[in-house]
């Protein structure tokens, strides 16, 4: 395999595998936030802000994967 095709495969793999975990995490956070909202609708503002904070933590991992993807895309031999 030549360098360019390896590079493309590497980028696809790093982004594709890297977003699996954060995807599951964000789904769990959102689902549990909705659960909490169903139990206690008065606490909506507090739950929403905490949910966004937690999602930002999970999301930053996906963003790292994306950044590494860009870095791989930008490398040359």
């Amino acid at each position, binding site marked *: 395999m030549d360098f360019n095709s390896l590079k493309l495969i590497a980028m696809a793999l790093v982004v594709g595998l890297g977003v699996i975990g954060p995807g599951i995490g964000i789904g769990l956070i959102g689902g549990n936030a909705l659960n909490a909202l169903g139990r206690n609708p008065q606490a909506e503002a507090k739950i929403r802000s905490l949910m966004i904070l937690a999602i930002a933590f999970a999301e930053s991992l996906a963003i790292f994967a994306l950044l590494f993807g860009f*870095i791989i895309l*930008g490398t040359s031999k």
Partner: protein
Amino acid sequence: MNQNEIHIASSKLFSFDIQFFNFSYNLIVTNSMLTTLIVCLFLMMMAAIIGLNLSRNSSEVPNKIQAFFELVLGSLGGFITGTMQVSKLPVLIYSISGFFFAFIAISSWVGLLPGVGQLFVDNGLEKVHLFRAPTTDLNVTVALSIIAFGLIQFQGIAALRWGYLAKFINFASPLAFVVGLLELISEMARLLSFSLRLFGNIFAGEVMLMIVLSMSRIPNPYLDFIGIPFPIVIIALELAVALIQAYVFVALFLVFSGLAKEEAH
């Protein structure tokens, strides 16, 4: 040069030499520095407009501009007292948080303005973008997070004195030493993730916008059809992402400030 090339680093516009006594330095002005300057001027102008529109005495009814900004700043104050769990609003943290929020939101939105991604200039070597959103430059986000973390450490030292240092370097027992070491590492990791999160989110958004915009240039009947509404949706998403990232930056800054003031356990 391919117009859709992805630049992770900002590009040089021009450079000039600074002579300072015997010390000379070649200062490189990049496109993100130029945009940062414009954003700062805009923020100063906004501050001047708000200042000129304040009511002079308490009997006067505040006008719409004052009422709007009182609402925004009041909710920011409520947010700070709620997150840090203090009864009195800390003035320094209040103003710094307001700066972080305004600067991050405005400088991310600048990248969505028409012309920011389309204007090119020649810097002698290649054609480069004239403008670049400040938050898509890693230098700016690292600088912002260093400011935030300097302030967090300052607050910790102000609240706990020497007890703050004992959080990180503790020879009381082997276990305490290892815990302190882990605290130190997690502090570094926070600094890194603070800057990379902001940079990555805004930069990924710009790249996504670029890809979607170039999609509408491919001669294809189906892509032509989706080429117009697609970028609009992405721009709307990016407007929200910029606001959320500004909110997250301020919220994490406040949470870590609260944690720094806590006693070691």
